[in-house]
């Protein structure tokens, strides 16, 4: 009797033990320290072998406002005249004097100022005017906020980008180009860094520049891109106060890589 009971108990214990073990492995034990994915903002850095990264971003923010007013002027020239006389008072000022002398002339001068501002130097003044208008318009509240955030970020980004470039360059230079055209592929890798600068994870988020010639190298270049950062892994000398800020930081960073 008792041996049978022992056998049943033993078998039951063994099954329970295995089920518990598998459950434990499935839940926590084998859970390989996957970073808890902090919802930190991403800092978009286009770190590259070339220096295209910081420059396009800083330049790209100012152009839009300047373009928009210009377009506005070009599209609607009729409503603009009222400000024109104001902006260029020196031109019309003498003209009224002339108009007082001749009745027909005033019409012409008024016509000429319309045409003239479009052609000559006054452009600068017009742009300035419209630019102000645009800013004082609906975009006014949002734009200053963006600009202040962006400029602050841009500075921090630029310094961090330069740092990263200096740190990554030696490893990037070691990479061997697997074939022709492979250096046209740009791989953006998302790096998660620990406060001590070591690499928590690196994953490819974007690939661009893949065409028919270099499509076969895409996976290889992806691997190389990740390998570059893994190789250089502990990134020393990064400013600790920029690890995590409201606008992001180097704890969570996207770096774009291209083969030399």
């Amino acid at each position, binding site marked *: 009797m*008792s*041996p049978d009971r022992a*056998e049943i108990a033993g*078998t039951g214990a063994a099954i329970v033990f*295995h089920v518990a073990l598998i459950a434990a492995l*499935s839940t*926590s034990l*084998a859970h*390989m320290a996957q970073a808890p994915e902090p919802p930190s903002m991403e800092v978009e850095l286009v770190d590259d072998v070339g220096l295209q990264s910081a420059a396009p971003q800083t330049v790209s923010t100012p152009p839009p406002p300047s373009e928009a007013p210009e377009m506005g002027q070009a599209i609607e020239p009729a409503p603009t005249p009222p400000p024109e006389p104001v902006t260029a008072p020196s031109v019309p000022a003498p003209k009224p004097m002339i108009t007082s002398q001749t009745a027909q002339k005033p019409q012409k001068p008024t016509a000429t100022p319309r045409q003239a501002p479009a052609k000559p130097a006054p452009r600068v003044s017009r742009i300035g005017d419209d630019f102000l208008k645009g800013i004082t318009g609906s975009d006014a509240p949002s734009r200053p906020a963006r600009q202040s955030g962006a400029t602050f970020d841009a500075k921090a980004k630029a310094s961090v980008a330069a740092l990263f470039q200096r740190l990554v360059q030696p490893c990037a230079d070691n990479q061997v180009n697997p074939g022709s055209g492979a250096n046209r592929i740009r791989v953006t890798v998302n790096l998660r860094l620990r406060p001590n600068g070591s690499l928590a994870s690196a994953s490819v988020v974007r690939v661009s520049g893949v065409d028919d010639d270099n499509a076969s190298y895409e996976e290889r270049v992806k691997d190389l891109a990740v390998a570059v950062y893994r190789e250089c892994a502990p990134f020393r000398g990064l400013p600790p106060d920029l690890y995590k800020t409201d606008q992001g930081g180097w704890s969570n960073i996207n770096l774009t890589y291209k083969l030399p």
Partner: protein
Amino acid sequence: MPEFQASNDMMSPLTLFLHADIVVKVVMLGLLAASIWTWAIIFTHSIRLKRINRATEKYEADFWAADDIDAFHTKRSNEKLPSAAILTAGMDEWRRSTRTRNIDRSGTRERLATRMNAAVAAELDRLGDRLNILATVGSVAPFVGLFGTVWGIMRSFTSIAAQNNTSLAVVAPGIAEALFATAIGLFAAIPAVIAYNRLTHGLDRLEARLSRFADRFHATLSRELEAEG
């Protein structure tokens, strides 16, 4: 929350199992069954051996403290213990041999020794049942796991050839799944080997203990035999 994350984890045993090839799956299931069986035997035999050791010690102490062997035998011979079986074998042979008027002393001694040794051997056979399974699992499971791994890696390399892609991302999951088979094989084999050695050692000690009891009882009966004459 971590449970849900874990279900997507690459290292989760269930994930590794579900992604594996059918052959590797069969190997994994077989090894898991072997592991469960191994642990069932380990638990059963460990508990039984411990219980028998404790009970035997008490039984023998009571036996040597008893004044009347016959009375002790009639009272406690039905206990499910190796010592009780040896005692029953000895007393049975004693009663049969001493039933006649002319007692062959040397022959009786020989028969008593034989019967009791046979009883010891029978008890050990019963207790050592299924230990061979531990030995088999211990020696074969790693090879079975290795077979699963080799098969899985073959399949991984075939997929590399098929995709024309040497990226680690193509090869790595297959190899991880394949290696999981070896992991299960070792997981089954290591406890099996340890338990086999430990349980064999425990049985050896029990055998020595039972032999000493049988020898001592034989000596007692032998002394009685001289007194009979």
